Protein backbone atom coordinates (compact mmCIF):
# COMPACT_ATOMS: atom_id res chain seq x y z
CA UNK A 1 0.00 0.00 0.00
CA UNK A 2 1.44 3.38 -1.00
CA UNK A 3 1.45 6.47 1.20
CA UNK A 4 -1.35 7.89 -0.90
CA UNK A 5 -3.57 4.82 -0.38
CA UNK A 6 -2.86 4.89 3.34
CA UNK A 7 -3.89 8.54 3.57
CA UNK A 8 -6.97 7.84 1.53
CA UNK A 9 -8.02 4.99 3.78
CA UNK A 10 -7.61 7.09 6.92
CA UNK A 11 -9.31 10.04 5.29
CA UNK A 12 -12.39 8.00 4.44
CA UNK A 13 -12.65 6.87 8.07
CA UNK A 14 -12.31 10.45 9.32
CA UNK A 15 -14.93 11.73 6.87
CA UNK A 16 -17.40 9.00 7.73
CA UNK A 17 -16.95 9.60 11.48
CA UNK A 18 -17.46 13.38 11.47
CA UNK A 19 -20.14 14.80 13.77
CA UNK A 20 -22.87 16.51 11.76
CA UNK A 21 -23.16 19.65 13.92
CA UNK A 22 -19.53 20.87 13.91
CA UNK A 23 -17.02 18.76 11.97
CA UNK A 24 -14.08 21.15 12.24
CA UNK A 25 -12.63 20.30 15.69
CA UNK A 26 -12.48 16.60 14.72
CA UNK A 27 -10.94 17.43 11.34
CA UNK A 28 -8.37 19.66 12.98
CA UNK A 29 -7.49 16.93 15.43
CA UNK A 30 -7.15 14.35 12.65
CA UNK A 31 -4.23 16.28 11.17
CA UNK A 32 -5.74 16.13 7.67
CA UNK A 33 -6.15 19.88 7.40
CA UNK A 34 -2.35 20.31 7.24
CA UNK A 35 -1.50 17.48 4.83
CA UNK A 36 -0.72 19.83 1.95
CA UNK A 37 1.82 21.76 3.99
CA UNK A 38 5.48 20.77 3.55
CA UNK A 39 6.80 17.96 5.70
CA UNK A 40 9.10 20.46 7.44
CA UNK A 41 5.99 22.34 8.64
CA UNK A 42 4.32 19.26 10.03
CA UNK A 43 2.40 18.38 6.84
CA UNK A 44 2.86 15.63 4.28
CA UNK A 45 3.51 17.80 1.21
CA UNK A 46 0.79 16.03 -0.77
CA UNK A 47 0.76 16.69 -4.49
CA UNK A 48 -2.12 17.01 -6.92
CA UNK A 49 -2.61 13.30 -7.65
CA UNK A 50 -3.14 12.57 -3.95
CA UNK A 51 -5.35 15.65 -3.58
CA UNK A 52 -7.45 14.42 -6.51
CA UNK A 53 -8.16 11.14 -4.70
CA UNK A 54 -9.11 12.95 -1.48
CA UNK A 55 -11.33 15.42 -3.34
CA UNK A 56 -13.16 12.59 -5.13
CA UNK A 57 -13.93 10.95 -1.77
CA UNK A 58 -15.13 14.30 -0.42
CA UNK A 59 -17.30 14.83 -3.48
CA UNK A 60 -18.91 11.41 -3.08
CA UNK A 61 -20.33 12.38 0.33
CA UNK A 62 -23.22 14.78 -0.07
CA UNK A 63 -22.78 16.39 3.37
CA UNK A 64 -18.97 16.51 3.63
CA UNK A 65 -17.57 19.93 4.60
CA UNK A 66 -15.08 21.90 2.47
CA UNK A 67 -12.05 19.95 3.70
CA UNK A 68 -9.92 20.16 0.57
CA UNK A 69 -10.43 23.91 0.15
CA UNK A 70 -9.52 24.42 3.82
CA UNK A 71 -6.39 22.27 3.36
CA UNK A 72 -5.38 24.50 0.45
CA UNK A 73 -6.18 27.69 2.37
CA UNK A 74 -3.91 26.59 5.21
CA UNK A 75 -0.95 26.67 2.84
CA UNK A 76 -1.30 30.44 3.04
CA UNK A 77 -2.96 30.96 6.42
CA UNK A 78 -2.08 28.13 8.84
CA UNK A 79 -5.05 29.02 11.08
CA UNK A 80 -7.68 28.97 8.32
CA UNK A 81 -10.78 26.90 9.01
CA UNK A 82 -13.97 26.17 7.07
CA UNK A 83 -12.81 27.98 3.92
CA UNK A 84 -15.18 27.31 1.02
CA UNK A 85 -13.72 29.59 -1.66
CA UNK A 86 -10.00 29.48 -2.41
CA UNK A 87 -10.10 31.46 -5.64
CA UNK A 88 -9.02 34.72 -3.89
CA UNK A 89 -6.09 32.86 -2.28
CA UNK A 90 -4.89 30.52 -5.03
CA UNK A 91 -6.40 31.86 -8.22
CA UNK A 92 -9.00 30.44 -10.55
CA UNK A 93 -7.12 27.49 -12.10
CA UNK A 94 -6.54 25.62 -8.82
CA UNK A 95 -10.00 26.48 -7.50
CA UNK A 96 -11.59 25.22 -10.73
CA UNK A 97 -9.52 22.04 -10.85
CA UNK A 98 -10.44 21.14 -7.26
CA UNK A 99 -14.11 21.83 -7.97
CA UNK A 100 -13.85 19.49 -10.96
CA UNK A 101 -12.28 16.78 -8.79
CA UNK A 102 -15.18 17.07 -6.33
CA UNK A 103 -17.60 16.83 -9.25
CA UNK A 104 -16.04 13.50 -10.26
CA UNK A 105 -16.81 12.16 -6.78
CA UNK A 106 -20.39 13.42 -6.88
CA UNK A 107 -20.91 11.90 -10.33
CA UNK A 108 -19.48 8.55 -9.24
CA UNK A 109 -21.89 8.51 -6.31
CA UNK A 110 -24.75 9.33 -8.67
CA UNK A 111 -23.64 6.53 -11.00
CA UNK A 112 -23.74 4.01 -8.13
CA UNK A 113 -27.18 5.15 -6.99
CA UNK A 114 -28.55 4.99 -10.53
CA UNK A 115 -27.11 1.60 -11.36
CA UNK A 116 -28.40 0.11 -8.11
CA UNK A 117 -31.82 1.61 -8.70
CA UNK A 118 -32.03 0.35 -12.29
CA UNK A 119 -31.31 -3.18 -11.05
CA UNK A 120 -33.74 -3.02 -8.14
CA UNK A 121 -36.81 -1.17 -9.39
CA UNK A 122 -39.26 -3.44 -11.22
CA UNK A 123 -41.88 -2.34 -13.74
CA UNK A 124 -43.73 -4.33 -16.40
CA UNK A 125 -42.64 -7.47 -14.56
CA UNK A 126 -38.88 -6.93 -14.69
CA UNK A 127 -36.09 -4.65 -13.47
CA UNK A 128 -36.17 -1.40 -15.42
CA UNK A 129 -32.44 -1.87 -16.21
CA UNK A 130 -33.46 -4.77 -18.48
CA UNK A 131 -35.10 -2.36 -20.92
CA UNK A 132 -32.91 -1.16 -23.77
CA UNK A 133 -34.08 2.43 -23.43
CA UNK A 134 -32.96 2.49 -19.78
CA UNK A 135 -29.71 0.67 -20.60
CA UNK A 136 -29.02 3.38 -23.13
CA UNK A 137 -29.49 6.13 -20.51
CA UNK A 138 -27.25 4.35 -18.01
CA UNK A 139 -24.54 3.54 -20.59
CA UNK A 140 -24.28 7.20 -21.58
CA UNK A 141 -24.23 8.27 -17.93
CA UNK A 142 -21.34 5.90 -17.22
CA UNK A 143 -19.45 7.05 -20.32
CA UNK A 144 -19.72 10.65 -19.17
CA UNK A 145 -18.54 9.85 -15.64
CA UNK A 146 -15.49 7.97 -17.00
CA UNK A 147 -14.67 10.77 -19.42
CA UNK A 148 -14.90 13.40 -16.69
CA UNK A 149 -12.70 11.39 -14.34
CA UNK A 150 -10.09 10.91 -17.05
CA UNK A 151 -10.05 14.60 -17.99
CA UNK A 152 -9.60 15.69 -14.38
CA UNK A 153 -7.24 12.98 -13.20
CA UNK A 154 -4.90 13.11 -16.21
CA UNK A 155 -4.01 16.74 -15.50
CA UNK A 156 -3.71 16.60 -11.73
CA UNK A 157 -0.08 15.62 -11.32
CA UNK A 158 2.79 17.43 -9.58
CA UNK A 159 2.86 20.25 -7.04
CA UNK A 160 -0.25 22.37 -6.41
CA UNK A 161 1.49 25.57 -7.44
CA UNK A 162 2.37 24.09 -10.85
CA UNK A 163 -1.20 23.73 -12.10
CA UNK A 164 -1.63 25.37 -15.49
CA UNK A 165 -4.72 27.21 -16.74
CA UNK A 166 -4.86 24.67 -19.61
CA UNK A 167 -5.04 21.70 -17.25
CA UNK A 168 -7.74 23.45 -15.23
CA UNK A 169 -9.66 24.24 -18.41
CA UNK A 170 -9.60 20.61 -19.53
CA UNK A 171 -10.83 19.46 -16.11
CA UNK A 172 -13.55 22.04 -15.66
CA UNK A 173 -14.88 21.91 -19.22
CA UNK A 174 -15.22 18.13 -19.32
CA UNK A 175 -16.56 17.74 -15.79
CA UNK A 176 -19.11 20.52 -16.37
CA UNK A 177 -20.25 19.00 -19.64
CA UNK A 178 -20.65 15.59 -18.02
CA UNK A 179 -22.55 17.06 -15.06
CA UNK A 180 -25.46 18.12 -17.26
CA UNK A 181 -25.95 14.68 -18.84
CA UNK A 182 -25.26 12.75 -15.65
CA UNK A 183 -27.82 14.69 -13.61
CA UNK A 184 -30.48 14.49 -16.32
CA UNK A 185 -29.97 10.75 -16.97
CA UNK A 186 -29.91 9.89 -13.26
CA UNK A 187 -33.17 11.72 -12.68
CA UNK A 188 -34.72 10.10 -15.74
CA UNK A 189 -33.85 6.61 -14.47
CA UNK A 190 -35.06 7.34 -10.94
CA UNK A 191 -38.45 8.78 -11.80
CA UNK A 192 -40.47 10.35 -8.98
CA UNK A 193 -38.36 9.00 -6.09
CA UNK A 194 -35.47 11.14 -7.37
CA UNK A 195 -37.53 14.26 -6.79
CA UNK A 196 -38.41 13.38 -3.19
CA UNK A 197 -36.63 15.06 -0.30
CA UNK A 198 -35.86 11.84 1.56
CA UNK A 199 -33.90 10.27 -1.33
CA UNK A 200 -30.17 11.09 -1.62
CA UNK A 201 -30.01 11.92 -5.33
CA UNK A 202 -30.91 15.60 -5.06
CA UNK A 203 -28.17 16.28 -2.49
CA UNK A 204 -25.55 15.01 -4.95
CA UNK A 205 -27.08 16.84 -7.90
CA UNK A 206 -27.36 20.11 -5.96
CA UNK A 207 -23.66 20.06 -5.12
CA UNK A 208 -22.77 19.03 -8.65
CA UNK A 209 -24.66 22.04 -9.97
CA UNK A 210 -22.95 24.40 -7.51
CA UNK A 211 -19.45 23.16 -8.42
CA UNK A 212 -20.27 23.37 -12.12
CA UNK A 213 -20.91 27.10 -11.97
CA UNK A 214 -18.13 27.88 -9.46
CA UNK A 215 -14.80 29.28 -10.74
CA UNK A 216 -15.87 29.50 -14.38
CA UNK A 217 -18.12 27.14 -16.30
CA UNK A 218 -17.61 25.36 -19.61
CA UNK A 219 -18.20 28.45 -21.69
CA UNK A 220 -15.77 30.65 -19.77
CA UNK A 221 -13.01 28.05 -19.78
CA UNK A 222 -13.62 27.01 -23.39
CA UNK A 223 -13.25 30.60 -24.45
CA UNK A 224 -9.97 30.94 -22.51
CA UNK A 225 -8.63 27.68 -23.87
CA UNK A 226 -9.77 28.42 -27.42
CA UNK A 227 -8.16 31.87 -27.51
CA UNK A 228 -4.90 30.33 -26.39
CA UNK A 229 -5.18 27.49 -28.93
CA UNK A 230 -5.82 29.86 -31.84
CA UNK A 231 -2.87 32.03 -30.78
CA UNK A 232 -0.47 29.05 -30.82
CA UNK A 233 0.25 27.99 -34.38
CA UNK A 234 0.18 24.22 -33.86
CA UNK A 235 -2.15 21.43 -35.00
CA UNK A 236 -4.94 20.42 -32.64
CA UNK A 237 -3.41 17.01 -31.85
CA UNK A 238 -0.18 18.61 -30.65
CA UNK A 239 -2.20 21.09 -28.60
CA UNK A 240 -4.28 18.30 -27.05
CA UNK A 241 -1.10 16.44 -26.09
CA UNK A 242 0.12 19.54 -24.30
CA UNK A 243 -2.95 19.92 -22.07
CA UNK A 244 -1.79 17.21 -19.69
CA UNK A 245 1.64 17.02 -18.06
Amino acid sequence: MSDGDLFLDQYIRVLDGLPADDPWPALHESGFLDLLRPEADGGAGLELDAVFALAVETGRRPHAPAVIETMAARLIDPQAIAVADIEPLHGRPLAAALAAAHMVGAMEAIEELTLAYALQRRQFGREIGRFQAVQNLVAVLVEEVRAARMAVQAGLVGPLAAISPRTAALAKIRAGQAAVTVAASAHAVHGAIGISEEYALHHHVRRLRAWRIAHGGENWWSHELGEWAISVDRDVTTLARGLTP
Partner: protein
Amino acid sequence: MLQSFEPARIPDADEALRKDVREFLAAHLTGMPADRRARSWMGFDADFTRALARRGWIGLTLPTRYGGAGRSQFARFVLIEELLAAGAPVAAHWIAERQSAPLLLRYGTETQRAEIVPAICRGEAFFCIGMSEPNSGSDLASVRSRAERAAGGWLLSGSKIWTTYGHRADYMIALVRTSGGVEDRNRGLSQLLIPMNIPGVTARPIRDLAGDEHFSEVHFDDVLLNDDALIGEEGSGWDQVIAELAFERSGPERIYSSTVLVDSWIGHLRTRGDPTPAEAALTGRLLAELATLRQMSLSVTGMLAAELNPVVEASIVKDLGTSFEQSIPGLIADQLASETPGSVPPELLATLEYVASMSPSFSLRGGTREILRGIIARGLGLR
Protein backbone atom coordinates in the same frame (compact mmCIF):
# COMPACT_ATOMS: atom_id res chain seq x y z
CA MET B 1 -17.04 -6.12 -15.63
CA LEU B 2 -15.84 -2.62 -16.18
CA GLN B 3 -12.19 -1.82 -15.43
CA SER B 4 -11.19 1.68 -14.37
CA PHE B 5 -9.46 3.96 -16.84
CA GLU B 6 -6.02 4.44 -15.27
CA PRO B 7 -3.97 7.32 -16.66
CA ALA B 8 -1.25 5.97 -18.95
CA ARG B 9 1.86 7.74 -20.16
CA ILE B 10 3.74 7.05 -23.39
CA PRO B 11 7.28 5.91 -22.55
CA ASP B 12 9.97 8.32 -23.81
CA ALA B 13 11.48 5.75 -26.20
CA ASP B 14 8.10 5.37 -27.93
CA GLU B 15 7.35 9.10 -27.89
CA ALA B 16 10.67 9.60 -29.72
CA LEU B 17 9.15 7.91 -32.78
CA ARG B 18 6.83 10.89 -33.30
CA LYS B 19 9.48 13.16 -34.77
CA ASP B 20 10.45 10.64 -37.47
CA VAL B 21 6.82 9.99 -38.40
CA ARG B 22 6.12 13.71 -38.67
CA GLU B 23 9.09 14.20 -40.98
CA PHE B 24 8.01 11.28 -43.12
CA LEU B 25 4.44 12.63 -43.38
CA ALA B 26 5.61 16.14 -44.17
CA ALA B 27 7.58 14.68 -47.08
CA HIS B 28 4.84 12.36 -48.37
CA LEU B 29 1.64 14.38 -47.94
CA THR B 30 2.79 17.72 -49.33
CA GLY B 31 0.29 19.09 -51.81
CA MET B 32 -2.45 16.62 -50.91
CA PRO B 33 -5.58 18.76 -50.40
CA ALA B 34 -7.41 18.66 -47.07
CA ASP B 35 -10.57 17.21 -48.59
CA ARG B 36 -8.51 14.21 -49.78
CA ARG B 37 -6.73 13.86 -46.45
CA ALA B 38 -10.13 14.00 -44.69
CA ARG B 39 -10.71 10.46 -45.99
CA SER B 40 -8.20 9.38 -43.36
CA TRP B 41 -8.24 5.60 -42.87
CA MET B 42 -10.68 5.26 -45.80
CA GLY B 43 -8.07 6.64 -48.23
CA PHE B 44 -6.45 3.84 -50.28
CA ASP B 45 -2.93 4.34 -51.63
CA ALA B 46 -0.80 1.23 -52.12
CA ASP B 47 2.32 3.30 -52.86
CA PHE B 48 1.96 5.17 -49.60
CA THR B 49 1.50 1.88 -47.74
CA ARG B 50 4.69 0.47 -49.28
CA ALA B 51 6.61 3.62 -48.39
CA LEU B 52 5.48 3.17 -44.78
CA ALA B 53 6.48 -0.49 -44.91
CA ARG B 54 9.96 0.44 -46.11
CA ARG B 55 10.34 2.44 -42.90
CA GLY B 56 9.32 -0.65 -40.91
CA TRP B 57 6.10 1.01 -39.75
CA ILE B 58 3.62 -1.68 -40.67
CA GLY B 59 3.29 -4.35 -38.03
CA LEU B 60 5.05 -2.26 -35.41
CA THR B 61 3.93 -4.48 -32.52
CA LEU B 62 4.34 -7.79 -34.35
CA PRO B 63 7.26 -10.14 -33.63
CA THR B 64 10.42 -9.49 -35.65
CA ARG B 65 10.60 -13.11 -36.83
CA TYR B 66 7.35 -12.53 -38.72
CA GLY B 67 8.46 -9.26 -40.23
CA GLY B 68 7.22 -6.95 -37.48
CA ALA B 69 9.18 -4.47 -35.39
CA GLY B 70 8.54 -6.01 -31.96
CA ARG B 71 7.68 -2.67 -30.41
CA SER B 72 5.14 -1.74 -27.76
CA GLN B 73 1.46 -0.85 -28.07
CA PHE B 74 2.44 2.71 -27.09
CA ALA B 75 4.81 2.99 -30.06
CA ARG B 76 1.93 1.94 -32.29
CA PHE B 77 -0.31 4.53 -30.62
CA VAL B 78 2.18 7.29 -31.48
CA LEU B 79 2.47 6.10 -35.09
CA ILE B 80 -1.23 5.77 -35.80
CA GLU B 81 -2.12 8.95 -33.95
CA GLU B 82 0.22 10.85 -36.28
CA LEU B 83 -1.02 9.05 -39.40
CA LEU B 84 -4.65 9.75 -38.57
CA ALA B 85 -4.16 13.34 -37.43
CA ALA B 86 -2.39 14.12 -40.69
CA GLY B 87 -5.02 12.32 -42.78
CA ALA B 88 -2.56 9.86 -44.30
CA PRO B 89 -4.15 7.38 -46.78
CA VAL B 90 -3.66 4.19 -44.80
CA ALA B 91 -6.64 2.06 -45.91
CA ALA B 92 -4.62 -0.39 -48.03
CA HIS B 93 -2.92 -2.00 -45.04
CA TRP B 94 -5.16 -0.82 -42.18
CA ILE B 95 -7.29 -3.91 -41.65
CA ALA B 96 -4.45 -6.36 -42.34
CA GLU B 97 -2.19 -4.66 -39.84
CA ARG B 98 -4.78 -3.98 -37.16
CA GLN B 99 -6.76 -7.22 -37.18
CA SER B 100 -5.71 -9.86 -39.65
CA ALA B 101 -2.03 -10.20 -38.75
CA PRO B 102 -2.69 -10.49 -34.97
CA LEU B 103 -5.46 -13.01 -35.73
CA LEU B 104 -3.22 -15.14 -37.96
CA LEU B 105 -0.42 -15.04 -35.40
CA ARG B 106 -2.81 -16.28 -32.76
CA TYR B 107 -4.81 -18.89 -34.69
CA GLY B 108 -3.13 -19.43 -38.05
CA THR B 109 -0.94 -22.31 -39.17
CA GLU B 110 2.82 -21.85 -39.09
CA THR B 111 2.82 -21.65 -42.90
CA GLN B 112 0.27 -18.84 -42.83
CA ARG B 113 2.22 -17.04 -40.13
CA ALA B 114 5.50 -17.40 -41.96
CA GLU B 115 4.19 -16.47 -45.43
CA ILE B 116 1.36 -14.03 -44.99
CA VAL B 117 2.30 -11.96 -41.93
CA PRO B 118 5.66 -10.84 -43.37
CA ALA B 119 3.85 -9.95 -46.64
CA ILE B 120 1.44 -7.79 -44.61
CA CYS B 121 4.40 -6.05 -42.98
CA ARG B 122 5.94 -5.41 -46.43
CA GLY B 123 2.69 -3.81 -47.59
CA GLU B 124 2.14 -6.58 -50.12
CA ALA B 125 -0.87 -8.43 -48.68
CA PHE B 126 -4.09 -6.46 -48.22
CA PHE B 127 -7.01 -7.86 -46.23
CA CYS B 128 -10.73 -7.37 -45.93
CA ILE B 129 -13.08 -8.66 -43.26
CA GLY B 130 -16.15 -10.64 -44.30
CA MET B 131 -18.76 -10.00 -41.65
CA SER B 132 -21.97 -8.28 -42.84
CA GLU B 133 -24.24 -10.05 -45.33
CA PRO B 134 -27.31 -8.88 -47.23
CA ASN B 135 -29.50 -10.06 -44.33
CA SER B 136 -26.98 -9.90 -41.47
CA GLY B 137 -25.80 -6.52 -40.23
CA SER B 138 -25.73 -5.85 -36.50
CA ASP B 139 -27.18 -9.34 -35.97
CA LEU B 140 -23.91 -10.94 -36.98
CA ALA B 141 -24.78 -14.37 -35.58
CA SER B 142 -27.38 -14.74 -38.33
CA VAL B 143 -24.82 -15.11 -41.16
CA ARG B 144 -25.86 -17.56 -43.88
CA SER B 145 -22.71 -17.95 -46.00
CA ARG B 146 -21.88 -21.60 -45.62
CA ALA B 147 -18.84 -23.83 -45.99
CA GLU B 148 -19.27 -27.62 -46.22
CA ARG B 149 -16.55 -30.18 -45.83
CA ALA B 150 -15.31 -31.36 -49.25
CA ALA B 151 -12.50 -33.59 -50.42
CA GLY B 152 -9.28 -31.93 -49.21
CA GLY B 153 -10.96 -28.85 -47.83
CA TRP B 154 -14.12 -26.76 -47.89
CA LEU B 155 -16.77 -25.76 -50.41
CA LEU B 156 -18.02 -22.22 -49.76
CA SER B 157 -21.16 -20.47 -51.00
CA GLY B 158 -22.81 -17.20 -50.02
CA SER B 159 -22.36 -13.44 -50.05
CA LYS B 160 -20.83 -10.64 -48.01
CA ILE B 161 -21.68 -6.96 -48.32
CA TRP B 162 -20.42 -3.54 -47.15
CA THR B 163 -16.99 -5.15 -47.05
CA THR B 164 -14.37 -2.41 -46.81
CA TYR B 165 -12.05 -2.55 -49.86
CA GLY B 166 -13.07 -6.15 -50.65
CA HIS B 167 -12.50 -5.39 -54.34
CA ARG B 168 -8.87 -4.39 -53.68
CA ALA B 169 -7.95 -6.99 -51.09
CA ASP B 170 -5.72 -10.05 -51.57
CA TYR B 171 -7.43 -12.02 -48.81
CA MET B 172 -10.63 -12.05 -46.85
CA ILE B 173 -11.09 -13.44 -43.37
CA ALA B 174 -14.76 -14.35 -43.33
CA LEU B 175 -17.18 -15.45 -40.64
CA VAL B 176 -19.26 -18.28 -42.12
CA ARG B 177 -21.46 -21.13 -40.96
CA THR B 178 -19.71 -24.51 -40.97
CA SER B 179 -22.38 -26.51 -39.13
CA GLY B 180 -25.97 -26.29 -37.97
CA GLY B 181 -28.50 -23.74 -39.17
CA VAL B 182 -29.35 -20.08 -38.65
CA GLU B 183 -31.34 -21.10 -35.55
CA ASP B 184 -28.07 -22.19 -33.90
CA ARG B 185 -27.02 -18.53 -33.74
CA ASN B 186 -23.38 -18.11 -32.67
CA ARG B 187 -22.73 -21.88 -32.50
CA GLY B 188 -21.42 -23.52 -35.65
CA LEU B 189 -19.63 -20.44 -37.00
CA SER B 190 -16.00 -20.47 -38.13
CA GLN B 191 -13.46 -18.08 -39.62
CA LEU B 192 -12.04 -18.89 -43.05
CA LEU B 193 -9.08 -17.42 -44.89
CA ILE B 194 -10.04 -16.84 -48.53
CA PRO B 195 -7.65 -15.74 -51.30
CA MET B 196 -9.63 -13.23 -53.35
CA ASN B 197 -8.16 -14.33 -56.70
CA ILE B 198 -9.40 -17.95 -56.76
CA PRO B 199 -12.23 -19.28 -58.95
CA GLY B 200 -15.76 -18.53 -57.73
CA VAL B 201 -14.89 -15.37 -55.77
CA THR B 202 -16.19 -12.12 -57.25
CA ALA B 203 -15.94 -8.70 -55.62
CA ARG B 204 -17.66 -5.57 -56.92
CA PRO B 205 -17.26 -2.09 -55.50
CA ILE B 206 -20.30 -0.21 -54.23
CA ARG B 207 -20.13 3.51 -54.82
CA ASP B 208 -20.61 5.57 -51.63
CA LEU B 209 -22.45 8.89 -51.27
CA ALA B 210 -19.20 10.85 -51.70
CA GLY B 211 -18.53 9.15 -55.03
CA ASP B 212 -15.75 6.92 -53.66
CA GLU B 213 -15.60 3.17 -53.93
CA HIS B 214 -14.54 2.10 -50.45
CA PHE B 215 -16.95 -0.75 -49.77
CA SER B 216 -17.99 -3.72 -51.84
CA GLU B 217 -20.13 -6.80 -52.29
CA VAL B 218 -18.47 -10.20 -52.49
CA HIS B 219 -19.99 -13.43 -53.83
CA PHE B 220 -18.80 -17.00 -53.31
CA ASP B 221 -20.04 -19.51 -55.88
CA ASP B 222 -18.88 -23.00 -54.93
CA VAL B 223 -15.46 -21.78 -53.93
CA LEU B 224 -13.09 -24.66 -53.22
CA LEU B 225 -10.76 -23.93 -50.30
CA ASN B 226 -7.89 -25.97 -48.89
CA ASP B 227 -8.07 -27.58 -45.46
CA ASP B 228 -5.85 -24.93 -43.94
CA ALA B 229 -8.36 -22.21 -44.86
CA LEU B 230 -9.90 -22.77 -41.42
CA ILE B 231 -8.53 -20.26 -38.92
CA GLY B 232 -8.46 -21.47 -35.35
CA GLU B 233 -11.06 -24.02 -34.34
CA GLU B 234 -14.10 -25.09 -36.25
CA GLY B 235 -17.12 -23.69 -34.42
CA SER B 236 -15.11 -21.07 -32.48
CA GLY B 237 -15.57 -18.35 -35.08
CA TRP B 238 -17.84 -16.28 -32.88
CA ASP B 239 -15.43 -16.03 -29.93
CA GLN B 240 -12.54 -15.29 -32.28
CA VAL B 241 -14.50 -12.50 -33.96
CA ILE B 242 -15.45 -10.92 -30.62
CA ALA B 243 -11.78 -10.88 -29.57
CA GLU B 244 -10.86 -9.38 -32.94
CA LEU B 245 -13.46 -6.63 -32.65
CA ALA B 246 -11.86 -5.47 -29.39
CA PHE B 247 -8.73 -4.69 -31.44
CA GLU B 248 -10.84 -2.98 -34.06
CA ARG B 249 -12.64 -0.78 -31.55
CA SER B 250 -9.82 0.19 -29.24
CA GLY B 251 -7.68 2.43 -31.43
CA PRO B 252 -7.45 6.18 -31.91
CA GLU B 253 -9.18 5.91 -35.31
CA ARG B 254 -12.39 6.39 -33.33
CA ILE B 255 -11.32 9.89 -32.30
CA TYR B 256 -9.45 11.45 -35.19
CA SER B 257 -11.78 11.02 -38.20
CA SER B 258 -12.66 14.74 -38.29
CA THR B 259 -9.29 16.12 -37.24
CA VAL B 260 -8.29 17.31 -40.70
CA LEU B 261 -11.48 19.39 -40.75
CA VAL B 262 -10.77 20.85 -37.28
CA ASP B 263 -7.23 21.81 -38.25
CA SER B 264 -8.41 23.32 -41.54
CA TRP B 265 -11.01 25.41 -39.73
CA ILE B 266 -8.65 26.65 -36.98
CA GLY B 267 -6.08 27.38 -39.69
CA HIS B 268 -8.71 29.50 -41.43
CA LEU B 269 -9.40 31.40 -38.16
CA ARG B 270 -5.70 32.12 -37.77
CA THR B 271 -5.36 33.39 -41.33
CA ARG B 272 -8.51 35.51 -41.14
CA GLY B 273 -7.77 36.86 -37.62
CA ASP B 274 -10.04 38.24 -34.89
CA PRO B 275 -11.77 35.04 -33.79
CA THR B 276 -15.23 35.72 -32.36
CA PRO B 277 -16.03 34.61 -28.79
CA ALA B 278 -18.15 31.79 -30.21
CA GLU B 279 -15.30 30.59 -32.45
CA ALA B 280 -12.83 30.67 -29.55
CA ALA B 281 -15.26 28.80 -27.28
CA LEU B 282 -15.88 26.09 -29.86
CA THR B 283 -12.13 25.70 -30.41
CA GLY B 284 -11.65 25.27 -26.66
CA ARG B 285 -14.44 22.73 -26.39
CA LEU B 286 -13.16 20.62 -29.27
CA LEU B 287 -9.65 20.71 -27.87
CA ALA B 288 -10.77 19.67 -24.38
CA GLU B 289 -12.81 16.78 -25.77
CA LEU B 290 -9.97 15.62 -27.99
CA ALA B 291 -7.54 15.69 -25.04
CA THR B 292 -10.01 13.71 -22.91
CA LEU B 293 -10.62 11.06 -25.55
CA ARG B 294 -6.93 10.79 -26.29
CA GLN B 295 -6.21 10.08 -22.62
CA MET B 296 -8.97 7.46 -22.56
CA SER B 297 -7.63 5.81 -25.70
CA LEU B 298 -4.14 5.82 -24.18
CA SER B 299 -5.57 4.21 -21.08
CA VAL B 300 -7.07 1.42 -23.23
CA THR B 301 -3.67 1.07 -24.91
CA GLY B 302 -2.22 0.61 -21.42
CA MET B 303 -4.74 -2.20 -20.83
CA LEU B 304 -3.72 -3.87 -24.12
CA ALA B 305 -0.05 -3.50 -23.17
CA ALA B 306 -0.84 -5.19 -19.84
CA GLU B 307 -2.57 -7.99 -21.80
CA LEU B 308 -5.95 -7.22 -20.28
CA ASN B 309 -9.03 -7.57 -22.47
CA PRO B 310 -10.67 -4.14 -22.65
CA VAL B 311 -13.83 -5.05 -24.59
CA VAL B 312 -16.20 -2.84 -22.60
CA GLU B 313 -13.71 -0.02 -22.12
CA ALA B 314 -12.97 0.07 -25.87
CA SER B 315 -16.72 0.30 -26.51
CA ILE B 316 -16.97 3.29 -24.16
CA VAL B 317 -14.14 5.12 -25.93
CA LYS B 318 -15.55 4.28 -29.35
CA ASP B 319 -19.04 5.52 -28.48
CA LEU B 320 -17.72 8.77 -27.01
CA GLY B 321 -15.16 9.13 -29.79
CA THR B 322 -17.55 8.66 -32.69
CA SER B 323 -20.09 11.02 -31.09
CA PHE B 324 -17.32 13.62 -30.93
CA GLU B 325 -16.19 13.02 -34.52
CA GLN B 326 -19.77 13.23 -35.73
CA SER B 327 -20.57 16.45 -33.88
CA ILE B 328 -17.68 18.34 -35.48
CA PRO B 329 -19.00 19.06 -39.02
CA GLY B 330 -22.31 20.41 -37.69
CA LEU B 331 -20.63 22.66 -35.13
CA ILE B 332 -18.11 24.04 -37.63
CA ALA B 333 -20.79 24.51 -40.30
CA ASP B 334 -22.75 26.67 -37.86
CA GLN B 335 -19.68 28.89 -37.27
CA LEU B 336 -18.93 29.18 -40.99
CA ALA B 337 -22.55 30.14 -41.62
CA SER B 338 -21.86 33.40 -39.76
CA GLU B 339 -19.19 34.45 -42.24
CA THR B 340 -19.63 36.67 -45.29
CA PRO B 341 -20.68 34.53 -48.26
CA GLY B 342 -17.73 33.80 -50.53
CA SER B 343 -15.09 34.43 -47.86
CA VAL B 344 -14.54 30.83 -46.77
CA PRO B 345 -11.77 29.00 -48.71
CA PRO B 346 -13.22 26.39 -51.13
CA GLU B 347 -10.88 23.67 -49.82
CA LEU B 348 -12.29 24.12 -46.31
CA LEU B 349 -15.84 23.93 -47.67
CA ALA B 350 -15.03 20.78 -49.66
CA THR B 351 -13.51 19.20 -46.53
CA LEU B 352 -16.60 20.13 -44.52
CA GLU B 353 -18.86 18.67 -47.19
CA TYR B 354 -16.98 15.37 -47.24
CA VAL B 355 -16.87 14.96 -43.45
CA ALA B 356 -20.48 16.07 -43.01
CA SER B 357 -21.76 13.58 -45.56
CA MET B 358 -19.64 10.62 -44.36
CA SER B 359 -19.91 11.26 -40.62
CA PRO B 360 -23.04 9.11 -40.12
CA SER B 361 -20.82 6.11 -40.95
CA PHE B 362 -18.52 6.82 -37.99
CA SER B 363 -20.97 5.24 -35.55
CA LEU B 364 -21.88 2.38 -37.90
CA ARG B 365 -18.55 0.88 -38.96
CA GLY B 366 -17.09 -1.69 -36.59
CA GLY B 367 -20.33 -1.99 -34.60
CA THR B 368 -23.15 0.53 -34.29
CA ARG B 369 -23.62 2.88 -31.38
CA GLU B 370 -26.67 0.88 -30.30
CA ILE B 371 -24.71 -2.39 -30.27
CA LEU B 372 -21.87 -0.77 -28.31
CA ARG B 373 -24.27 0.53 -25.67
CA GLY B 374 -25.61 -3.00 -25.32
CA ILE B 375 -22.06 -4.22 -24.68
CA ILE B 376 -21.57 -1.49 -22.08
CA ALA B 377 -24.87 -2.37 -20.40
CA ARG B 378 -23.77 -6.00 -20.22
CA GLY B 379 -20.47 -4.89 -18.66
CA LEU B 380 -22.49 -3.03 -16.03
CA GLY B 381 -24.56 -6.10 -15.21
CA LEU B 382 -27.76 -4.74 -16.73
CA ARG B 383 -28.22 -7.64 -19.14
